[in-house]
């Protein structure tokens, strides 16, 4: 456990000492602080727009972070030969991958929580300038950010998996973006082919599309922005299933990453 914590701490230190990541965080913070100004462009839905922009900014930041950190995690350590200094200690490759992921995960979770805390006074300020009929549902906003955090942990795990088989930044980065885009649209495509349009397609094509739908992570399941903006209620069962789905998917991706990395020949 001490070793796992040490590996997590080393990954976290690497992230926190990266100037580029700090600059991105600074930019997003600035964007969130400017939310009251942007919200003024909507004459009647200032509060709703403030929540939308804030959640979108947080979501975009977490996406960029999970993509960058996951994609550059393992292959960069191999390329810089950090692996030869860490994996020649009594450290298993499993511990290394888990330590790496947990460092990234802690950073993503902390950033999500920090940005939520920053967004609270910003949304309150924006909402007070033009009060809405719908009260601000803070729990829904927190749930939306929580679901986003889980979604981007999944993205990070996916990028880390690609990173274990890659020798450069490009494969993990672009493959993760491709899966992210496909996974974000898969629910709509599934519903489309499951309806009237599906009867016009070859059964084999429908089966392939449905097969891909089940394999790809369904990122749209984590989108809880609309209930957060308009104060709609959630089904606790649905939330629990989404959480379970995310956690199981992350575990599967990490197991695959460990399997692949354990077989990898290192410089």
């Amino acid at each position, binding site marked *: 456990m*001490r*070793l796992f*914590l*040490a*590996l997590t701490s*080393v990954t976290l*230190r*690497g992230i926190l*000492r*990266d100037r580029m990541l700090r600059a991105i965080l600074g930019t997003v913070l600035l964007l969130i602080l400017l939310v009251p100004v942007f919200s003024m462009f909507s004459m009647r839905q200032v509060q709703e727009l403030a929540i939308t922009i804030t959640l979108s900014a947080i979501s975009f930041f977490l996406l960029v972070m999970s993509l960058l950190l996951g994609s550059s995690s393992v292959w960069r350590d191999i390329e*810089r*030969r*950090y*692996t*030869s*200094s*860490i*994996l*020649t*200690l*009594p*450290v*298993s490759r499993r511990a290394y991958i888990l330590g790496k992921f947990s460092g990234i995960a802690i950073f993503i979770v902390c950033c999500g929580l920090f940005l939520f805390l920053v967004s609270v006074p910003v949304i309150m300020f924006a909402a007070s300038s033009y009060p809405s009929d719908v009260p601000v549902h803070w729990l829904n906003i927190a749930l939306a950010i929580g679901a986003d955090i889980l979604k981007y942990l999944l993205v990070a795990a996916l990028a880390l998996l690609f990173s274990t088989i890659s020798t450069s930044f490009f494969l993990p980065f672009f493959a993760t973006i491709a899966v992210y885009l496909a996974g974000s649209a898969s629910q709509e495509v599934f519903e489309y082919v499951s309806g009237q349009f599906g009867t016009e397609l070859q059964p084999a094509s429908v089966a392939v599309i449905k097969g891909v739908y089940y394999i790809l992570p369904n990122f749209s399941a984590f989108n809880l922005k609309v209930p957060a903006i308009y104060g709609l209620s959630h089904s606790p069962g649905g939330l629990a299933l989404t959480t379970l789905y995310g956690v199981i998917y992350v575990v599967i991706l990490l197991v695959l990453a460990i399997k692949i990395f354990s*077989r990898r*020949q*290192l*410089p």
Partner: protein
Amino acid sequence: MKSESIHSIEISSLSKTYKGRKGKAVEALSELSLTIQNGEICGFLGPNGAGKSTTIKILMGLITATSGTATLCGLPVTDPGARKRVGYLPENPSLFDYLTAREYLALCGRAFAMDGESILRESQRVLELLDLREAADRPVRGYSKGMVQRLGLARTLLHDPDVFILDEPMSGLDPVGRALVKDILKDLKSRGKTVFFSTHITADVEVVCDRVAVIVGGRLRSVDVVDELLESGIEGYDIQVKNCAPALYAGLTSSPKASDITEIYVPRDRFNEFLAHLGKNGGDIHLIEPKRKDLEAFFLDILGKG
């Protein structure tokens, strides 16, 4: 606790084949078998690309062998626990450059299951030993190549392991650093530690090693006791004599050294005969110095370039 019956390093029929360009198989190691006894210092000598680093990477679990087995302290090298009693220095170590030396050593200490107090104490000891105390709280990215090499060595010494595996330990060091490393190796030898180090500098092997294994083209070509090798390489003796009649060394190469001292080169096969003549006819021996092939000459012989 060191078990005397278990060899520190045991390599048996180790082979490694890479896929080269166009899928062509490249044999980096072929049927390598080598045993390193407890408490010995063994040099692993070979030209560039001979397979030294490949062997060491297999021992440290970075790459897997195509066939054959290897153990460290009795445990298979595929088991991370095998590295608990091993201090490893990679060739041109690349350490987390955003960490300070102290942070890096703390990470290593935790990996070796050292307690917090021991990590602090031992980190301080090795940082002082390797003259890194002043730089200990600076990020590694600001270190020179020699400082990184010394930090790599500090890591190997941190947990006082029984076995040291060093890949080109003198690489990137200035003469002071090289002398320091040699002193450390001698100290390890005096403390009964096992050291297996690769190098292509024969002089390093001569100074510190008990045995030398020579690898060429992925095949182990010889394993010799360094002292025996050097002894067998004696070709003759430079003998400085006083008050010796010139007739006694007629036919031998000689040169005057001082007014009454002459240096004579006596081939090995005529050494006893010459001493017998000298004893019978008078003359004092001032100095006898064996002239021998150095390890480099042996190495070049093995390579077929001598």
